[in-house]
């Protein structure tokens, strides 16, 4: 059902994403265009890049990206151009800045903190003497006798 819901969301109609007539004649430019369109979100779809999307607006954006590349923009200029028109929402990879710092730093920070706690724990264990086992309760004694058949 989970995947089912996802599939239902992803494809409302079947037209495949990049169409033959969109492809640039220059293979290098086309590869750059594909790399960029994979980073950009289709604004009317569910969690889909414009590269995968069948939506009309995604096609328009794919053509726009290619136009900018042919016009001589750098990859970053193309992305800035799209973001200026459609907002930060289209970026699948939020830029690393003060506002997005918690997103990017959560993993490394948790690793450091968790690693510190884990290391302190392991060191404490390393210094602890092997303790005497707590004695069994009478019920457990009788269960043990029963289990071992004595």
């Amino acid at each position, binding site marked *: 059902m989970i995947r089912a819901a996802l599939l239902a969301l992803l494809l409302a109609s079947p037209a495949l994403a990049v169409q033959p007539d969109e492809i640039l004649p220059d293979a290098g430019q086309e590869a750059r265009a594909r790399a960029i369109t994979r980073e950009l979100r289709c604004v009317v779809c569910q969690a889909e890049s414009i590269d995968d999307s069948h939506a009309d607006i995604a096609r328009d954006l794919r053509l726009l990206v290619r136009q900018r590349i042919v016009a001589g923009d750098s990859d970053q200029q193309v992305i800035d151009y799209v973001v200026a028109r459609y907002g930060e929402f289209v970026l*699948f990879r*939020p830029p690393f800045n003060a506002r997005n710092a918690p997103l990017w730093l959560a993993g490394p920070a948790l690793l450091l903190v968790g690693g510190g706690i884990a290391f302190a724990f392991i060191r404490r264990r390393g210094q602890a003497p092997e303790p005497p086992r707590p004695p069994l309760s009478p019920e457990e004694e009788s269960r043990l006798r029963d289990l071992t058949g004595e």
Partner: protein
Amino acid sequence: MVVELGHVALIVAFLVAVLQMVVPMVGAHRGWADWMRVATPAAVVQFALTLAAFLALMWAFVVSDFSVRLVALNSHSAKPLIYKIAGTWGNHEGSMMLWMLILTLFGAMVALAGGNLPPGLKARVLGVQAGIAVAFFGFIILTSNPFARLTDAPLDGNDLNPLLQDPGLAFHPPFLYLGYVGLSMAYSFAIAALIEGRVDAAWARWVRPWTLLAWVFLTIGIAFGSIWAYYELGWGGWWFWDPVENVSFMPWLVSCALLHSAIVVEKRDTLKSWTILLAILAFSFSLIGAFVVRSGILTSVHSFASDPGRGMFLLLILGAFIGGSLTLYAWRAPTLRSTTAFAIVSRESGLVLNNLLLVVAAAVVFVGTMWPLVVEVATGRKVSVGPPFFNLAFSPFMMAIAVVLPVAAVLPWKRGRLGRAFRQMRGALALALACAALAWVAETGGSMTVPVGAALAAWLVFGALSELAGRIRLGEVGLPESLRRLGSLPRADWGKALAHAGLGVTILGVAAMSAWAAEDIRAVREGESFAVGPYTLRLDSVASTRGPNYTAETAAVTVTRGGRSVAILHPEKRMYPVQGMATTEAAIDRGFARDLYVALGDPQPDGGHALRTYVKPFANWIWGGAMMMALGGIASLTDRRYRVGAPVRRAAVPVAAE
């Protein structure tokens, strides 16, 4: 009539769950044995009633009873029988019924197989389990009644979303739910242990097989989903870091950590309170997943606010079970201290590192999934977090796990020597470097992805083999003795090696798919040939065909390589008239080292058809590795030590409850 009986069974099951939640708990608290004993029959009856309700709903789908609202909205008389059956859970209400069926199934399994559990623990486990059931029965009955009737039954139904009319629907959700819901067992055991204030090796031995079982199902469920997306979406994507996927991946990661920490509790009587916390977290992530998917909150904060009924109810369940359990944990966990000693270099430390990396990886997925929601609620800005972020932020942790795993896996308990472990892995290391070099030479682009992936894969696979070789002392004691040892190796050891090698196989598939896949998109006329990589493809024909409830355009594509025929593929574009929706059915020539993937697109304005061709290297290794992991889990489950409901007590000795 059948439908009404189902509805009644559902309500009675709810009442039985209430009984099972209260009576055994009170009994365990007071030490009343006959009150505790209520749990077992109640759990079995609860399951039987839920099964009856579920079958009643399925019956309505099979006979296409369109007076039932759910059937009218989600089924059609012309739909093939298998999709009428599987369609039972292809919608919100029906999938909740499947969720309940599995939840009560696990309860009944513990009731019947748990004869060797101490009565107090068993009563509390089943009591907690019933508490979960009460919450979700309440949710179904109050907000999502699957048995609601229509006053004017339509002549035919709206049909099931065509994308779901696939064998994948029959397998993917049940396995995923067996995993999600199976984790409730670990949760119930954790809560029961917190109430009792006692966690010991026996507790870990009881809880581990249930967690392992849930994890195996979750692994299979996620892999099925990935395969399904791969062939259904028409361009061979297999993982999208979509929120809906992420919420299934988080419990997988956490339960994987739980599996490993429970070993430490069982063998070494330490990491107890951490293991309890993981058990709580694993099921909490399942609940969060259910909430995220069903409330639609990640789709839009506003859609949640406009239809708050279900979302609020689920949020309450979430708050009660996660908040309640964490409060109980904060109160009781400090009593679970243990004082077992082990050195810094030891199996224990290795498993702590495993837990750290898995849990931080899960946290990265969690933060990335929730970030857009948090930002929108806090600031009103709309942002996206997608695959490029996760590939960058998540992968390092998986790579770290792969690097550490083979060495940590051979460290002995208590105190080990790194030098010795490394020496055992010398061969695996050499082979890993050789595989990396091979991948580097084989490719042209100079990307590091596949060489690194190949090195990690070989390191894991040959590391697992080296571990087995070490276990049977290959080369030390003579071949006959080694073979004898191989024969008597516990199945848990086989399971461990298989699962760890499976991770390696998956890593290779992922790396190769992300860096070596070739793509070709073009307009092709009938009879025209073109080359993709070493293959020559010819579009022979495109013909109109007809299925039971759809029409289609079916292409025939002949694939040759160096003049020799490789395959004839039949990609399809289907049109489902009832929903006015079309789907692509890609044709795939599957292979050990590559998949050849062809999808048919729209007719082109200047004649011909759009055709997409992909060469997907090592695609099947992704799922093959996942299946190896699942098989490893199953092998461990069949080990005498962990068998579900293992050693039966010879004579019942009453253990006084607190």
